[in-house]
């Protein structure tokens, strides 16, 4: 009974989150779709939490620990890399007074 209610509560959260996601994301203009992708990418790095929780449980063999360290590393790459790269991109969308300090990669000669 308790299990069932946990499941249904979580399913309710899942469905509501789907609708909210749909509404919120629909408002993002085409221009920002790449940052949106990399931003949402960073957000799904939240699976890191799964690694953090499971690694603390008892009964993990040495091999499990290796797997989980890799999973935690993957999740961290996903989160840190995703947010940083999104931030870099979005900074460029801000209107700047002068293109003063940026790496002049590819700039005319």
């Amino acid at each position, binding site marked *: 009974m308790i299990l069932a209610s946990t499941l249904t509560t979580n399913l309710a959260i899942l469905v509501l*989150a789907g609708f909210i996601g749909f509404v919120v994301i629909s408002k*993002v203009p085409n221009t920002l779709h790449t940052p949106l992708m990399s931003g949402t990418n960073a957000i799904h790095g939240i699976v890191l939490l799964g690694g953090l929780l499971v690694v603390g449980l008892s009964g993990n063999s040495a091999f499990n620990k290796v797997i989980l360290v890799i999973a935690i590393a993957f999740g*961290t790459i996903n989160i840190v890399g*995703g947010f940083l790269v999104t931030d870099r991109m979005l900074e460029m969308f801000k*209107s700047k007074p002068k293109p003063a300090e940026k790496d002049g990669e590819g700039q005319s000669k």
Partner: protein
Amino acid sequence: MSLPVASTFLQDPSFLDVLYIIAFALFIQGLRGLSGPTTAVRGNRIAAVGMVIAIVATLLNRNEGNWGLIVLGIAIGAAVGVPAARQVKMTAMPQMVALFNGVGGGAVFLIAWSEFRRSGGYEDTATYITIFSLFAAIVGSVSFWGSNIAFGKLQEILPGRPITLGAGQQIVNLLLLILAVAAGVDIAAGSHSELVFIGMLVCAALLGNAVVLPIGGADMPVVISLLNAFTGLSAAATGIALNNPALIVAGMIVGASGSILTNLMAVAMNRSIPAIVAGGFGGGGAVAGAEGAGEHAGTVKSIGAADAAIQLAYANRVVIVPGYGMAVAQAQHAVRELTKELEARGVEVSYAIHPVAGRMPGHMNVLLAEADVPYDQLKEMEEANPEFQRTDVSLVIGANDVTNPAAKNTPSSPIYGMPILEVNNSHSVIVIKRSMNPGFAGIENELYYEPETSMLFGDAKSAVSEITAELGQL
């Protein structure tokens, strides 16, 4: 391991749940910020704060050891992720996103695998938890391998053209899917065999490879969005298995976002998602078409940079149509210089951006933003198309299929019905292109044979720089 101060309060499950709720509220608020370029930076940072709160809550929740492993994992991840994110070029953004997406999927299936091993094949686990874990494992594995293949293609480690098994491809894909699901059902029904679990992961891995390998470069925007949605959904499933609301909400929002983008991209190409997943313009037909290219009955007018400069200088209105060629040549800064030069001469310049130009949704916008092109000069397709009639020169830089009038005029064309930028309505068209080779879709572009079109052959960056130099001498 307990914290010395107020540990009972900090580890109260309700308190932790409140932290998770705050975290997902911040995710949603952060994504709301992405509705405009001025609020977007803050939005992203708000979401990042939400992530920090979720991580802190999880660390507080832990009663047991292995802190060293956590520190190790996070340190490795940060050591890889931070430099990668700081150094990646904007033109390489699609593969970076594919890679980050892949590691997310990788984390999902690794967690599911370790949980299977730890619990002795989901012994004493509620069935629904088992099912969601297995779902996460399969989808995470597909996403991991699929994203890696997408990365390989975009990074040109693998050839960008479709790689298929031919007619059997769809049967093989279906078979792999059935095998993966069957293995999952076997485990859910009580099998404790790790071999079955590994077999399931392997089938899902092969499926990820088999689905993405046949997809051509031009379909990449759809695939990347789709894989993004997959990873999101697998994260949400992990959230249900672990009973963690932050994971559920975050995963589901990403799933929704990826689904919306996938659908937008598919609509912009007038193709159904199943058709794309079943294999690019993948069949033998398109490849055969590519071989026959260049023998079109019609003449192509080739011009030099000087002629192009004259045409542009005496125009009143110029629309620039960028495509993947601009990204490959890293020509965005050169294009910006050209725009400035033209504007100094009183020419009105804008950019028309097709939704699927480039290799991911919004790819061109990022590149042009990097080159400081003002936001209001970028026109979306619906906005740009009516304007072409009063445009003197359309300058197509490395875009191909998205300008092909065959999409409107030739019912037999594979891209018939795809919405295009109607550059052929403008008074004249200059196409900068490396050669007459057709685009990834392998389709002849009728635009090049129209009388008002001139071709300027060359690398996008050097060609644009030459035009700018010629303009300076006029």
